[in-house]
C-alpha cells in the first residue's frame, strides 16, 4: 500500500496508545460510582460495536442478530460457573469459541442470502435463540440466572465492592477489539472483506474466496462479541434471556458504529463515547416513571445523525486530504 496509508496506520496506532493511556488514568480522577458505571458501559459498547463492525461494516454483511452471540457468551460463562464451577475466564473463552463455531454453522446457509433476506434471517435466528433460552428450564428459562457473588476476587472475576477491575477489563477488551480491527484492516482479510462488500461478483472473479471471507469475518466478530457477553454476565451478575439476547440489544450494539461511522476503525469507539453517556444521562434524568422523554431524545438523535451524516461522525475528525 502507498506511503500515505502506511503513515495513517502508524498515526492510528500512536493515537490509540495515547487514548488507552489517558483512559487508564481516568479512574484516578473519577471516583463517582455512577460515572464509573457509565465508563464501563461505554467501553463495553465500544468493544461490542467494533466487533460487530468487522462483519457488518468491513465485510458488508449487515447482522441485526448479534445479540445471539452476546447472549451465548453470557450464558456459557454463567452456566459453566454456576453449574460446574468453571472459572469465568475459561467461560468467556469457551463462550467465544462456541459462538464462533455457531456463527460459522449459521453462516454456511445464510451467507448465500442477499440484502434484506440476510438481515431478516439474522433477526429471526437470534429470536429463535431467545425463545429457546426462555423455555430452557435447566438454564433458568425466562427468569434467568443469578450468579452468586461472594467477595472481591480476580480468580472468579467478581468485585461487589468496586467498579475499577471491570473498568480495566472493559478497557482491555475495547483495546483488543480495536487492535484486532487495526491489524485485520491491512491484512489479506481486510482487503478481501472490502472487496466482498463493494462488489462480490467482481471480487470472486479476481480470486477472492467470497464465502470463506464472510465465514472468517463472522467467526472473529462472534468470538469477540461473546467475550463481551461473558464480561457483562460477570459485571451485572444477573442475566435473563430478554436482557442479553433481545432484538433491542442487537440494535444497541450496531448503533455506535452507525453513528460513528460504519466500516471505519474509529467509528465504533467514537459512537460509543457519544451515545452511551447520552443514553445513560437521559435515562437517569428524564426517563423517570416511564415518561418516554429519554426515548424521544435518543430516537431523534439517531434520525438526525443518520440523515445528516450518513457516513458517520468520524469524518468530522479527518484531516483534509492532501492531493
Amino acid at each position: 500500500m502507498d506511503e500515505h496509508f502506511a503513515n495513517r496506520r502508524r498515526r492510528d496506532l500512536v493515537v490509540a496508545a495515547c487514548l488507552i493511556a489517558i483512559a487508564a488514568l481516568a479512574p484516578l480522577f473519577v471516583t463517582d460510582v455512577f460515572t464509573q458505571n457509565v465508563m464501563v458501559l461505554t467501553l463495553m459498547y465500544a468493544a461490542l460495536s467494533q466487533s460487530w463492525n468487522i462483519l457488518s461494516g468491513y465485510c458488508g454483511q449487515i447482522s441485526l442478530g448479534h445479540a445471539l452471540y452476546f447472549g451465548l457468551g453470557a450464558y456459557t460463562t454463567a452456566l459453566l460457573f454456576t453449574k460446574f464451577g468453571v472459572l469465568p475466564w475459561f467461560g468467556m473463552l469457551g463462550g467465544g469459541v462456541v459462538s464462533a463455531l455457531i456463527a460459522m454453522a449459521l453462516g454456511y446457509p445464510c451467507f448465500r442470502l442477499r440484502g434484506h433476506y440476510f438481515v431478516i434471517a439474522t433477526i429471526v435466528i437470534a429470536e429463535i435463540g431467545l425463545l429457546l433460552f426462555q423455555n430452557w428450564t435447566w438454564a433458568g428459562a425466562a427468569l434467568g440466572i443469578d450468579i452468586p457473588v461472594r467477595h472481591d476476587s480476580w480468580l472468579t472475576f467478581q468485585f461487589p465492592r468496586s467498579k475499577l477491575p471491570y473498568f480495566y477489563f472493559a478497557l482491555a477488551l475495547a483495546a483488543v477489539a480495536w487492535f484486532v480491527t487495526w491489524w485485520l484492516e491491512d491484512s489479506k482479510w481486510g482487503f478481501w472483506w472490502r472487496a466482498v462488500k463493494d462488489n462480490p461478483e467482481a471480487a470472486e472473479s479476481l480470486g477472492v474466496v467470497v464465502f470463506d471471507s464472510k465465514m472468517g469475518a463472522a467467526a472473529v466478530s462472534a468470538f469477540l462479541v461473546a467475550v463481551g457477553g461473558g464480561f457483562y454476565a460477570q459485571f451485572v451478575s444477573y442475566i435473563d434471556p430478554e436482557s442479553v439476547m433481545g432484538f433491542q440489544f442487537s440494535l444497541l450494539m450496531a448503533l455506535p458504529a452507525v453513528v460513528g461511522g460504519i466500516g471505519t476503525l474509529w467509528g465504533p469507539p467514537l459512537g460509543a463515547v457519544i451515545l452511551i453517556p447520552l443514553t445513560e444521562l437521559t435515562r437517569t434524568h428524564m426517563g423517570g416513571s416511564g415518561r418516554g422523554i429519554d426515548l424521544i431524545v435518543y430516537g431523534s438523535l439517531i434520525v438526525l445523525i443518520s440523515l445528516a451524516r450518513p457516513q458517520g461522525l468520524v469524518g468530522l475528525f479527518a484531516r483534509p486530504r492532501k492531493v
Partner: protein
Amino acid sequence: MLTAETIIQSLASGLLMGLLYGLIAVGLALIFGLMDVVNFAHGEFLMIAMYATFFLFAFFALDPLLSAPLVAAALFVFGAVVYLLIVRFAVRAKANAGMVQIFSTFGLAIVMRGLAQFFFTPDYRSVTHSWLGGKTISVAGIFLPEPQLMGAAVAIAAFGGLYFFINRTDFGRALEATREDAGAVALVGIDKNRVFALGWGLGAALVGLAGAIMAVFFYIYPDVGASFALISYVTVALGGFGSVFGAFAGGIIVGLVEAATALVLPPSLKSVGIYAVYLLVVFIRPRGLFGSM
C-alpha cells in the same frame, strides 16, 4: 389431545389470523416494492392506528368498524408526511444507503414509542365494548371469533381493492412505472416524490385499517407494534420482496404455521415455527416464494 376437531379449529383460527397478518404486512410490501426501503417503524404505524381507534372509541364512542376509514385516512396523511420529512432524505444518502434507511426509520420508531409513552402513558388500554368484540359464531362445530372474521374479510377486500387499484387506475400505473424506473417516469412528467409520498400514504393507510380491526381484540400499549413488526418483515420476505401479493400468501402461511406450531409445541414457542419456515424457504429459494428481487 389432538383430535381432528382441535386441529381444524386451530387451523381455521390460524387462517383468519394469517389473513390479518397479510393485511398488516401488505403496506410494508407495497413500500418496499415501490422504492426498496424497509420501514423499520412499521410496527409503530400499527401502534398509532390502534391508539387512534381507541381514542375515537373513548371520546366519541365510535365503534372501531366506523372509525376504521377515519383511521386509515389519518394514517394515509401520516405516511405521506413521514416520507416527505424523513424517508425522502434517507434515500438520497450517498454513503451507507442501506444502514441510513434502517436506522432513520428505526430512530423514528423509538421516537414514536417515546411519544406514545409520554402522551398516552405505558398503561394497557382496550376497547371495552364493540359490536363484534367477544362474539363468536359457530360453523359445523368450529367456533370463529367475529372480530377475526371481520379482519379476514377486510383483508380480502383490501387485497382485492389493491389489485384493482394497481392494475386499473392511472395512479396505480404510475406507481408500477415508478417502481420499474424512477428516472424514466420523470421524462413523461410524473413527479417521483409525489408518487413515493402517495405510496407511503397508501402503505400506512393499509396498516391503519389493520390497526383499527386489531384494536377490537388486542391490548393497546406503546410497545404493541414490536412483536407484529417482526412478523410483518418475515411475512413480506417469505412472500418475496417486490411482490405485494406475496405478502398475502406469506400472511396466510405464517398464520397457519403459527397455529400448527402451537398444536405441537408449548404456546410460548409458537413463533419458532414461523421463523423456521422462513429460514427453510429462503435457504431453498433465496428470493422468497414470489419475490422478484
